[in-house]
């Protein structure tokens, strides 16, 4: 039932209203004092050197890609997880589970490969 989701929209309205109110209210109410260096990025009191548009460690990218891989994997497991017990009731539990094992095994080998290659080692 699509209508079951309607109360979430009500909550979304409340939450967005609250968030917008909070972001705008102190722009309106807060006092402003202009001071030299106040708008600089914080750097422990020293004068800043350059900005923060830096090149990032490739590890963060790797983690993101690995996350997507395993996230999609777990999402594909959801329908099986819901139906696992009814499969067992219909007597096809073992067959379906064997297929799931095959599916996860491929990704498991992938994880082992990344591990072996040092993709999960951070301090390198």
């Amino acid at each position: 039932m699509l209508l079951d989701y309607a109360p979430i929209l009500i909550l979304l309205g409340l939450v967005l209203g609250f968030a917008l109110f909070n972001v705008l209210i102190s722009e309106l109410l807060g006092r402003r004092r202009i001071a030299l260096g106040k708008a600089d990025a914080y750097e422990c009191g020293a004068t800043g050197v350059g900005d923060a548009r830096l090149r990032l460690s490739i590890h963060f990218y790797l983690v993101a890609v690995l996350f997507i891989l395993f996230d999609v994997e777990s999402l594909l497991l959801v329908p099986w997880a819901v139906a696992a017990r009814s499969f067992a009731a219909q007597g096809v539990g073992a067959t379906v589970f064997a297929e799931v094992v095959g599916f996860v095994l491929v990704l498991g080998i992938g994880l082992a490969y990344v591990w072996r290659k040092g993709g999960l080692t951070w301090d390198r």
Partner: protein
Amino acid sequence: MPDSTTLLVWLLKAGLIYGGMLGVAAGMTLAERKVSAWIQWRIGPNRVGPFGTLQPIADGIKFFFKEEVVPRDANPVLFRLAPMLAAVPAMLTVAVIPFAGDISIAGVQTTLSIADIDMSALYVVAIGGLGVYGVILGGWSSNSKYSLLGGLRASAQMVSYELSMILAILSIVVMSGSLDLREIVAGQAGAIWQWNIWSQPLAFVLFLVATFAETNRHPFDFAECEPELVGGFHTEYSSMKFALFFLGEYCAMFVMASLTTTFFLGGSEVPFWADAPWFVQLGAFAAKTSLFLFLFLLVRWTLPRFRFDQLMAIGWKVMLPLALANVFLTGALASLGVYGS
């Protein structure tokens, strides 16, 4: 189109539960300071109201009137958008948590949750996962090195532990055969030993650890990590925008504690009293949830912080294989018909 009574009940439930969550979040900021004071042999806030109980309200009013500092080099749009993106998903996830069973409001029979949808476990994961955008955009848009590093670390940590969390939920879903949180709770009705914590102890531990990582709490608070990164991704934030990040974090803590209760401690089920009235169920839910909320505080003020490489190593090399193995084992048992059908 629903009739006006249904609409009114929806509005009432949304308002009450959302207001209640904000109240708990505000109370948690006070509890955090009181518990830390208690652990460190101090008094803690005791000036505003009796025993400092009005401190959160005073803090809120103070935040309203604080100056808004936007760094010169920051991206002005994303800088203002990020606190909202961090707080909104955390607050939205509360929509599906069943706080109590059947209740009749103005003649309408309903459950005490904002929305009764049948894929609520998936909804929680999907919406909760969006919180990472606020963190990384807040870090990047500030154009400060501390913010950038904090945002990157926090997002890497959140996505890494989300996997273990999803897999821990999956093994619960296999057990109960439903993505509906109400069904998962109903499956744990009856005695205390019906709770999932006994049949899924590994999933419970994995989920609990993941909740700490997902909410950026100690011992996983690399997003802030004061000695290294000052304030992490919210270093440059001030006034109410700063408060919004924190409100989001405390709401996420509340939701995570509620989810742990729902998945593993039988949610609103009262042991040995199947048809308890709704307020007893709500009380049981509150008691179980406050246990985990207190654990958040206790852990923060007793344990030291990990190193970031340790955190990533645990997430990928320990938690993920264990969670996969747990889903495997649960799936194998379920496929053999051990859990019935």
